[in-house]
């Protein structure tokens, strides 16, 4: 509350005088305005977290770490974080049971999370959008086929599917990317198909058709740019989903093969010592939590920000 709104004097029910009612109404309105403005402000904390926990570590992992993420110093195994008794500033967040620095591994883990999410979302978005555009624009049997595929893929139990595939061909970087891409293309396809259906009916698409534009041109020039907002928002939200999925798969051992420092693998590795050396699981888990939460908040904000109706008001 700002200083221009002095606190209401104690005693006497608010709203007993007409001037008080007015004052209250104005006050409430001003607060609502402030809320509206606040919800439109960029979520700086989320951006900060995504940048400093995910993006920068992933890009600069080699430059900002001094330890080896894969080979530890066995003598320093299970060192607690620096601020705890027995901790050392050499290992800021402590070490795991093989004496590897947790912070270093989290930083290299960010690289895996970012690579996996970028690649899977790229594949998923391209495949999903293409099929969604075709289904939404042309309808008919293409639409029936694509919609059937979307429904099928969305109803597959992802974890089970992943376990079956990994059991059959073994865990690897490529396998996990393929598995996740297969599970996320459908959400892109469904969203794009729906939006295409509505953009297809607009007057400017009709105009382009009347002007002699071929279908591929209409799709690329008119439909795609008009659904780009949705795609960006969906992709942002999906980064969180993918990181969570990769971590889950890695946790159960169907994801990134050891000893690579995936966050999910790290959480799994610390399970046995959770009561004695909680930091082994805790910090990678915290990284997952912060990054996924921030990405979701960022996506929500982006959705409002990119909505032309909201922008006009601002």
């Amino acid at each position, binding site marked *: 509350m700002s200083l221009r709104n002095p606190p209401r004097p104690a005693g006497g029910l608010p709203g007993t005088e007409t001037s008080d009612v007015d004052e209250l109404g104005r006050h409430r309105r001003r607060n609502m305005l402030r809320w509206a403005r606040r919800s439109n402000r960029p979520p700086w904390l989320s951006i900060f977290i995504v940048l400093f926990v995910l993006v920068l570590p992933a890009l600069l992992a080699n430059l900002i770490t001094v330890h080896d993420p894969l080979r530890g110093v066995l003598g320093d195994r299970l060192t607690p974080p620096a601020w705890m008794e027995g901790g050392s500033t050499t290992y800021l967040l402590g070490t795991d049971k093989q004496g590897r620095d947790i912070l270093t591994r989290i930083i290299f883990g960010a690289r895996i999370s970012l690579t996996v999410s970028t690649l899977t979302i790229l594949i998923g978005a391209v495949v999903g959008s293409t099929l969604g555009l075709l289904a939404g624009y042309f309808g008919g049997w293409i639409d029936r086929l694509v919609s059937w595929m979307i429904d099928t893929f969305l109803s597959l139990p992802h974890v089970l599917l992943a376990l079956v595939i990994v059991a059959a061909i073994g865990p690897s970087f490529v396998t996990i990317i393929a598995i996740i891409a297969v599970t996320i293309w459908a959400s892109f396809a469904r969203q794009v198909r729906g939006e295409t259906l509505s953009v297809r009916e607009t007057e400017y698409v009709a105009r*382009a058709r009347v002007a*002699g534009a071929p279908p591929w041109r209409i799709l690329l020039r008119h439909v795609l740019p008009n659904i780009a907002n949705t795609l960006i928002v969906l992709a942002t939200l999906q980064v969180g989903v993918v990181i969570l999925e990769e971590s889950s798969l890695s946790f159960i051992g169907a994801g990134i093969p050891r000893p690579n420092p995936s966050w999910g693998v790290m959480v799994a590795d610390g399970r046995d010592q959770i009561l004695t050396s909680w930091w082994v699981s805790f910090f990678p888990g915290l990284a997952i939590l912060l990054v996924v939460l921030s990405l979701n908040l960022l996506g929500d904000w982006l959705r409002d920000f990119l909505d032309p109706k909201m922008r006009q008001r601002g």
Partner: protein
Amino acid sequence: MSDLSSTPLAQGRAGTGSGSPVLEVKDLRTYLYTRWGVTKAVDGVSFHLDRGETLGIVGESGSGKSMLALSLVRLTPEPASRNEGGQVLLGGRDLLALSEKHMRAIRGKEISMILQDPQQSLNPVFSVGNQLREAIQVHDRSLSGEATRDRSLAALKSVRVPAPERRLRSFPHQLSGGMKQRIVGAMAMAYQPQVLIADEPTTALDVTIQAQYLRLLEDLQERTGVGIILITHDFGVIAESCDRVAVMYAGRIVEQGPVAAIFDNPRHPYTRALLESRPKAGSRKARLQSIEGQPPSLNDLSPGCRFAERCSYAMSRCEEEYPPTVVIDGPHGAACWRSEEAPWAIN
């Protein structure tokens, strides 16, 4: 139904345009195949359009006007609609016989169309210049950036857009309604087509902007000689800007002729009823005259006259046999058994 093209009606008004029609439609039929049966949306329509002429097509909702317009450029909804015969001759070529690719090269270049809501016809995410460039490059990919820009500017100037250089950088939401229409007009006219189809271009506008828009079309026509097909349900618009008018009812043209003849001497009871149902300035009647009943379902048509059910002058013959088109006077013709006596004459 008789073939209108063989009657004097289709020969064109003396003194209008070059005499030889730019567009000739013969016995055009477009049927829609739906779950509920076959809808004969356009059922044997014939007319022609001369160079520099404006033909009004008037009729109530569901009479097949819009479907007719879409049939001309072969953009009827797929896959429900099918062409069931007839010809659309543009400069001697039958558009219905062309390949889709060939047809695409003609749309927007030789035959253009302005849609019902020009306000919404611009893509909100691109600048005006960008969209004009696209409309131009669709038909000529080899055009250089400079040449395209010149053409865009020329197109904007042709519709009298002030400060065209600045407008190229504007986005649709920065423009007024009237401006947007002009730009849509500029896009439709970028290649100086021979035929421009305007499907209810004024329905979404208020009256002053309507008048402006009609004047703009007239202006374009004078300079380029484009033949305009103006589809509307508003006789006021017809009176203001058309040379000839065709009245559509239930998928067929029931009367066509010069505007003055239709207004002064309607020879089809439906035309007469439509004219009666206009609001008139100075009239003190509280209620508007309406036509009793509903247009017939286009799925299940009787062999007789489609208006018979609602017609106060119907005879028994009307319900049994569809009337041939009777030539009233030169280009004026009507498809009614009683068009000669015209018991509904306006005094």
